[in-house]
């Protein structure tokens, strides 16, 4: 085919190669072209790009490219031919389109390649991961198998040991049995021997006694100086059948007394125990009955208690009278009822325990810790309290002793007087304090009322002033010219009734000359003249003065406030102030409005 590796071939050779191979099949051409394209990626790219088409073989290359592209389904590079023979012109648009298409294709292919590569990587890593897992699992399986074998071994050993021990035990038991048998046989033998020996001994004793008695060398006698009287002072009695009977009687009497005494003791014990049981039963019933009254979920519990109570009540009275009897049925009934109550109580306690444990499970450790802490804190508090109480008790005891151990009546009375004096003086002091405070409160109250009255008067005066001033304005209004558009626009910016607008319209020109003439102090002075000095109004004036230094809009803003207070005053609603404060967004105005509301509110409160 040719030496495709050598790219440094002269261009003509390449071209000739290309041109010669244009006649070959497109598939082989394509494959060769792929080969061609794959090589220069590592080496001279530019040379290859220039190698394909040079200035000499443009036509050929174009025709070649056109062929290739048409086979791929792209539109032809040439323009539409008009005739067969005429040279076809290169359709630049088509070329460009083709290039674009090719670029798009290239991009798509690159993307696809990237995706495939990433997928490949992923799959590779997954494979690795799975292989690792598999290896680990294999290891685990191995170790667990080994463990199992080890455990089986141990189990076998233990079973062997167990069997050995059983065997030993059996042997020991057999030995013990054998020894016991030996002992038993020996014991019988021994008894037999003993009996024999005893008989011999007795015989010998008898013989000896006879021999001894027969000798009579020494007389067995008793020498007494004189007879001693009987212990009980009575004379001895003959032994007769009667005395024997009497002895028996006495003996039985003694026995019977003993039995009666014991029976009494046992009856007393029984009675006490029964009392205790009855008490227990009553207490248990009372413990369980509050449950019955509250409507709780444990219906079965309550029904249980209800049933038991229903059973008890009719029998209750009867049983109390039968306390002293100790017949079977009463005893059985008592024990049965106690058992029933106890079972109910037990189940109740168990349920409570379950509840408690459930609650605990949720906040287990913390609650425990907290409860313990609380418990400790409480115990500490209680201990402190106890100490304090003890100290108090000691001091009280001392005082009591002092009081009790009175040496003289005088001193005790003096002491008493002293204590009382102290208390009296303290009371007097407190009383005087209290009176003073009362006076102060009265004074303040009076001053407040006076202030309120003053405010009312001031207000009235102020309103009258304003009314008069407005009247004046109105009268003076006709002498002035009408305004420019600015004023109209500015007036339109304000919300309000036509009356108000007119007023503002009219008041503004009035005010302008005020301002121009540096009338801010004049304004204030005028206002101060009209209004008597009071803290709220002075504030109002101050704020007004600071406001009036601003631009005309501010001034204009002030004026509706001026007018508005009058209206608000008439309506007596402090809510208007908030309306006033809204258009006037400067701090000063807000402040003044607020202060005025305060005084205004006060005025309303204190008519």
């Amino acid at each position, binding site marked *: 085919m040719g030496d495709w590796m050598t790219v440094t071939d002269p261009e003509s050779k390449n071209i000739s190669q290309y041109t010669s191979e244009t006649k070959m099949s497109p598939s082989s051409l394509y494959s060769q072209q792929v080969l061609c394209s794959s090589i220069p990626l590592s080496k001279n790219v530019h040379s290859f790009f220039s190698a394909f088409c040079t200035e000499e073989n443009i036509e050929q290359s174009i025709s070649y490219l056109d062929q290739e592209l048409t086979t791929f389904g792209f539109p032809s590079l040439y323009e539409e031919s008009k005739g067969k023979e005429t040279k076809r012109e290169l359709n630049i648009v088509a070329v460009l389109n083709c290039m674009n298409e090719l670029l798009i294709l290239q991009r798509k292919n690159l993307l696809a390649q990237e995706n495939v590569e990433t997928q490949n990587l992923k799959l590779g890593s997954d494979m690795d991961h799975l292989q690792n897992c598999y290896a680990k699992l294999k290891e685990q399986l191995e170790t667990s198998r080994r463990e199992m074998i080890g455990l089986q071994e141990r189990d076998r050993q233990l079973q062997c040991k167990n069997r050995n021990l059983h065997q030993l035990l059996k042997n020991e038991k057999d030995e013990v049995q054998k020894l016991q048998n030996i002992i038993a046989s020996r014991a019988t033998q021994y*008894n037999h021997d003993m009996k024999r020996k*005893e008989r011999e001994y007795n015989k010998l004793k008898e013989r000896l006694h006879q021999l001894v008695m027969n000798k009579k060398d020494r007389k067995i006698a*008793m*020498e*007494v*100086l004189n007879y001693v009287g009987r212990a009980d002072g009575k004379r001895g009695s003959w032994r007769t059948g009667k005395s024997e009977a009497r002895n028996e009687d006495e*003996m039985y009497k*003694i*026995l019977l007394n003993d039995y009666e005494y014991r029976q009494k003791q046992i009856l007393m014990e029984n009675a006490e125990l029964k009392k205790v049981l009855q008490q227990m039963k009553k207490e248990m019933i009372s413990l369980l009955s509050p449950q019955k009254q509250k409507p709780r979920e444990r219906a079965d519990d309550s029904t249980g208690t209800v049933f038991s109570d229903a059973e008890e009540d009719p029998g209750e009275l009867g049983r109390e009278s039968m306390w002293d009897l100790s017949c079977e049925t009463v005893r059985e009934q008592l024990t049965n009822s106690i058992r029933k109550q106890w079972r109910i109580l037990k189940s109740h306690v168990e349920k409570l325990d379950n509840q408690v444990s459930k609650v605990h499970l949720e906040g287990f450790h913390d609650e425990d810790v907290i409860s313990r802490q609380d418990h400790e804190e409480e115990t500490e508090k209680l201990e402190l309290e106890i100490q304090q109480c003890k100290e108090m008790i000691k001091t009280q005891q001392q005082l009591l002793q002092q009081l009790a151990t009175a040496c003289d009546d005088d001193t005790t009375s003096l002491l008493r007087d002293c204590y009382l004096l102290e208390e009296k003086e303290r009371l007097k002091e407190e009383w005087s304090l209290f009176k003073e405070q009362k006076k102060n409160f009265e004074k303040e109250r009076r001053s407040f009322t006076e202030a309120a009255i003053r405010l009312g008067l001031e207000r009235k005066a102020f309103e009258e002033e304003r009314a008069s001033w407005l009247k004046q304005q109105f009268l003076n209004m006709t002498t002035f010219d009408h305004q420019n558009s600015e004023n109209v626009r500015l007036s339109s910016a304000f919300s309000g009734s036509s009356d108000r607008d007119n007023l503002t319209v009219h008041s503004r020109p009035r005010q302008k000359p005020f301002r121009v003439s540096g009338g801010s102090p004049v304004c204030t002075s005028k206002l101060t003249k009209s209004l008597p000095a009071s803290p709220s109004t002075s504030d109002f004036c101050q704020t007004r003065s600071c406001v009036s230094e601003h631009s005309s809009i501010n001034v204009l803003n002030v004026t509706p406030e001026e007018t508005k207070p009058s209206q608000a005053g008439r309506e007596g609603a402090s809510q208007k102030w908030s309306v006033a404060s809204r258009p006037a967004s400067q701090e000063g105005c807000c402040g003044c409005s607020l202060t005025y509301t305060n005084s205004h509110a006060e005025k309303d409160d204190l008519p």
Partner: protein
Amino acid sequence: MYKRGLVQVWSLEQPEWHCRIDEGSAGLVASCWSPDGRHILNTTEFHLRITVWSLCTKSVSYIKYPKACQQGIAFSRDGRYLAVAERRDCKDYVSIFVCSNWQLLRHFDTDTQDLAGIEWAPNGCVLAVWDTCLEYKVLLYSLDGRLLAAYCAYEWSLGIKSVAWSPSSQFLAVGSYDGKVRILNHVTWKMLTEFGHPAAVGDPRVVVYKEAEKSPRGLLGRPTCPPPRAAESKYEIAAVPATLQTLKPAADRANPKIGIGALAFSPDSYFLATRNDNVPNAVWVWDIQKLRLFVVLEQLFPVRSFQWDPQQPRLAICSGGSKVYLWSPAGCVSVQVPGEGDFQVLALCWHLSGDSLALLSKDHFCLCFLETEDGDTARGKLGSHT
């Protein structure tokens, strides 16, 4: 005077009154008073018979075939009845006599191999009979000879060594060779509890008093020469767990020193004092109300005998030295017997009133008076007589 077969009697009130009983060839093995103080019972040699000598009528009665055992004769507490253990034809019998006229009331056989002892209950209605030490058996007979109950704790081992009734007749304490005391109750005659006597005391509620010598010399007291008089001793409270001195018994000799050798109830039945022969220096005091060990007293020498004050829970112990030891729930004290030379206290005996105590040595005895001052008991004045 056993060797000569003579019994001599004197009167405490009339010094010139005097009586002499001569058994002659019959010999004399044991002699005792009857409860009314008018009769003397002499047991002849080889236990051939018991002769009852009457001091008021100078008459003689005989009781045949008495049993030669540890405790063959028992008078009931009220002095009405006498129980005698007999053995005829290799069988044991018990005869009950009325003390007022020595008439036989009952005679019945017992289900024992070899009767070892009998004892009346303080209420006089029950008689406890126990078997030889080779077999553990306690039989309880009523006054009229009926068998009430039998109790056997175990077989094939040495059995009962000592028995004691509680003064209220509620409990019967049975001490056996296995070092345990078993308490039976009087209603069912079944075991209430058993008390063990190990050498190591572990219960922290128990107080252990150990007698220690107050040596006037140095700390560890290396006395170069033995002191002329026995040194004073005092009780120290030992920390629990404490171990006590034990004695290893010789297994091949008769009468081995194991088992509960001595038992005594306090007069109010609150305490039981026991001695385990295995641990001979110690006296165990048990609280019967709570049925557990209360106090252990360990002496320097083996305890010879102890006895409760008949009036209050006060225990007197002697251990062969020249001191008598007193214990009460308030505390314990060791009292030195004053006098020249060594007075070896071998036995002691309380007076019925509980005010005085007789201490017996080999051939002397001395009386210890206990002053009952306010709060201060057990300060003893000691007088001495020979």
